[in-house]
């Protein structure tokens, strides 16, 4: 039953865009926290490898920091329960978007995305792929340098040791970028004679993921435009957030990637 092939990158783009859009539309903690759970489930089912797992953890930490910082901003104004709640919910939305992005990072190969791009958009796509892969590659690089330094008996601790860590990481990053560019050039990228080696199949599974994700986003858009459900719970005074059954189902739809199969390790 388990499909060993990976999911088409376009399906992941559709999933991440839709999930991010849903998070953008609401400050209801019910939907937002559910999106955290959905992201976690999808990540657990589809993560690519250990390096990407590390980058997911990085985004998770970043999201927690974003929530804390956004909530702390309340100290610049009047501190009361309503304002703190409002700030926290805004931060939670920001954090949710980060977690979704982290999931997208962990389940896709950014350079697989470059292959998808039409020839004319190849360079912007390459730029986007580089931007997307900077976080996981830097995290992986830091890990490798740390291991190497430890073997040499250098303890990386505190701010003074930062150069010892940062210089090799940056150097390595530059080196990797050069290698990548050269290898791409040798394969005909940018010269208009690039071939498609083993194109990614657009499976029914990928289609299902894309369609359910877009459906979820459309449901939230309808709620936002139509106003038939509360997307921004009142914080002054604080009331219990509401959970509309249809919107709960829409968030549940975003868990489709975790349900229709998983990546074999």
């Amino acid at each position, binding site marked *: 039953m388990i499909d060993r092939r990976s999911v088409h990158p376009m399906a992941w783009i559709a999933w991440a865009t839709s999930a991010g859009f849903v998070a953008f539309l609401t400050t209801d903690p*019910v939907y937002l926290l559910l999106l955290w759970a959905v992201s976690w489930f999808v990540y657990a089912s589809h993560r690519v490898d250990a390096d990407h797992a590390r980058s997911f953890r990085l985004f998770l930490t970043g999201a927690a920091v974003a929530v804390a910082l956004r909530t702390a901003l309340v100290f610049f104004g*009047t501190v009361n329960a309503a304002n703190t709640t409002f700030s926290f919910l805004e931060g939670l939305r920001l954090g949710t978007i980060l977690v979704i992005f982290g999931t997208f990072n962990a389940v896709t190969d950014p350079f697989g995305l470059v292959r998808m791009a039409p020839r004319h958009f190849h*360079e912007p796509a390459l730029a986007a792929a580089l931007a997307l892969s900077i976080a996981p590659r830097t995290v992986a690089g830091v890990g490798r340098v740390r291991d190497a330094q430890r073997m040499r008996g250098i303890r990386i601790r505190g701010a003074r040791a930062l150069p010892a860590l940062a210089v090799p990481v940056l150097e390595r990053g530059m080196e990797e970028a050069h290698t990548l560019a050269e290898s791409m050039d040798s394969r005909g990228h940018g010269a208009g004679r690039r071939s498609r080696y083993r194109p990614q199949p657009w499976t029914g599974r990928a289609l299902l993921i894309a369609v359910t994700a877009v459906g979820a986003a459309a449901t939230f858009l309808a709620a936002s435009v139509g106003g038939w459900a*509360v997307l921004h719970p009142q*914080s002054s005074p604080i009331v219990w957030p*509401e*959970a509309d059954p249809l919107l709960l189902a829409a968030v*549940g739809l975003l868990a489709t990637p975790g349900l229709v199969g998983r990546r074999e390790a």
Partner: protein
Amino acid sequence: MPTVAAALRRSVAAALVIVAAMIPVTLPAVTRAAPACAAATGPHAALVIDTGTGTRSFCIALDATTVSGIHLIELAGAQDHLAYGFGSGGQAVCRLAGVGPQGDDCFADYPEYWGYWHGDGHGGWTWSSTGAASARVGGGALDAWVWGSGDSGATHRKPPTMVIDDVCVPAASPATTSSPARSTPRASVPSSGSPSSPTSTAPSQPGTTRSADPSARGVAKTSPPGGPPTAGALAAPPGPPPASAGPGPGLLVALVLGAALAGGGWLRLRSTRGRSAS
């Protein structure tokens, strides 16, 4: 290999552009500080909403030297998520914080309606002689809306005694525009609509379809009748956080769904690890 170097340079530049483009997306969310009374900057006015079951007060940063009473409510909606609904073409106040009629006729619940008061700066209140659309509110002024019956300031329920310092903690400026000279009775809302079927004396009925709609921030688009009424949206005194209605059944479903997803993810991760180790 000039093409490689050029492509790399362009790609890095484009990557920087993408990162830069993301900054304005995240920045407003970060820099838009708490919607609160930063009393030190700019003029502020106080808005007091008394629904009969509770009183809420807002310290509102004005976006002009003086604003209309209507615009003060709009500002409260933007800054503090006060839900409101206007009638008579945006001239009259029908609905505040989920209390009041939903349609364009602000006297649909007559004899209950929103009475409009101005603070006199010494804790007292005077009945507004003008409608909210033409009333001018400046820095340090107090405006109050009280849900109740009574056709004039003599019979309508008054808001609790209050001065600007009670709302805007370190007061922005002393009361400048709130003059005690407004005393003509009954002009807060256009006298349209016929007094119909007097509602019960309960000031607000958070159980009926027209009540407590804490929906979207700002404009109260008023959820359809039959939508889940959330009682107690405003049923609390100012100050401590209010005791709100309990959580709805949807929350339980969400909790179960979230737990299932989190647990499922954990199991997946564990089984994957186990397989790769073996």
